[in-house]
């Protein structure tokens, strides 16, 4: 009689009651595929809330293993997960929360060679990386593939986010055409980050993804949302698509994926023998 099982009706009742969701919206969530890149500070709350909401398929990309210093903010992982691949502990946590969600894991580092293949089957991409190399790669790939990208970044007590709908609004490069030179912007490892700021911004990313799937509300397209946790203040900066943008502009000059070999991408993993390992957020 119902399109949902008795268990689903109970699990998702607070969603279904909402006018903007209902059974129709819940079905959209169930049919949706969201890729969360990075099972770290941002990806943890984002993936948790997407799984809780009943997003049917969640992909997780991460090549790292859980480190004790991650647990201050990366709430998908537990102390006993230290040393295990993040994608594995993420899958365990998400399945434990909601066994109805299909979790697909990619224990790899996104690069020019695999990013298009991985994002292809997803409806929405959530950027939970904290290195500029992958951030620009993901931006360019999503613009080329026409995939909505929910971008966020965190540092210290600050967070920033925007939703990129290719050609409907600005992409990351419209606002920041090139990555900053290495060393200009410190990593969380150097500068520190308060765990709850990852919670705020990652949760906002989950909300954006849910709005995109449901087609409700106003997404943060063409609006940069800035959160200053110390002051307890949100700010918004409007941004427009740049017709001269090198990737989403009218005459793009970047037509193939580029990977930046930024020195600031190296530090943490070098000692552990992985020069490729990204700085964890």
């Amino acid at each position, binding site marked *: 009689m119902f399109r949902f099982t008795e268990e689903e*009706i109970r699990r998702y009742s607070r969603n*279904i009651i909402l006018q903007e969701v*209902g059974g129709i919206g819940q079905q959209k969530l169930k049919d949706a595929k969201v890729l969360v890149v990075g099972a770290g500070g941002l990806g943890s709350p984002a993936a948790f809330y997407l799984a809780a909401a009943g997003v049917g398929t969640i992909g997780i990309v991460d090549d790292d293993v859980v480190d004790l210093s991650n647990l201050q903010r990366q709430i998908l992982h537990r102390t006993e997960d230290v040393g295990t691949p993040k994608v594995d502990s993420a899958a365990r946590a998400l399945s434990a929360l909601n066994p109805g969600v299909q979790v697909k894991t990619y224990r790899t580092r996104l690069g020019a060679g695999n990013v298009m293949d991985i994002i292809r089957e997803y409806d929405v991409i959530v950027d939970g990386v904290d290195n500029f190399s992958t951030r620009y790669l993901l931006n360019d790939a999503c613009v080329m593939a026409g995939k909505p990208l929910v971008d966020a970044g965190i540092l210290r007590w600050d967070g920033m986010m925007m939703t990129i709908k290719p050609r409907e609004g600005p992409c990351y490069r419209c606002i920041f055409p090139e990555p900053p030179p290495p060393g200009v912007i410190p990593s969380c490892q150097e500068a520190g980050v308060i765990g709850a700021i990852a919670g705020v911004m990652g949760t906002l990313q989950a909300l954006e993804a849910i709005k995109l799937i449901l087609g409700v509300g106003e997404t943060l397209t063409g609006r940069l949302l800035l959160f200053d946790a110390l002051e307890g203040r949100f700010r918004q900066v409007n941004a427009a698509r740049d017709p001269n943008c090198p990737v989403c502009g009218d005459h793009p000059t970047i037509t193939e994926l580029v990977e930046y070999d930024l020195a600031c991408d190296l530090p943490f993993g070098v000692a552990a023998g992985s020069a490729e390992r990204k700085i964890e957020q």
Partner: protein
Amino acid sequence: MPEDVQVHRELDLKGEVCPYTFVKSKLILETMAPGEVLRVIVDYPPATGNVPRSMESEGHKVLAVNPAGDGVWEIIVRKKD
């Protein structure tokens, strides 16, 4: 309820409590055509207030809430156009 209202769907929710009374009614209403009429049977007393209120807030027209036997009520609602 006026005698001549045609009921298109019936939903027996005896034994069900809030908010699932409304959730299940909503799920059925979504599958019906605009203007069609749903008759919901409940035996959970608070549902006789909660369900009509939620239906109205979603824009549907509650035509009647009537006792329908021992500890049982019927809620008649017309789906919004």
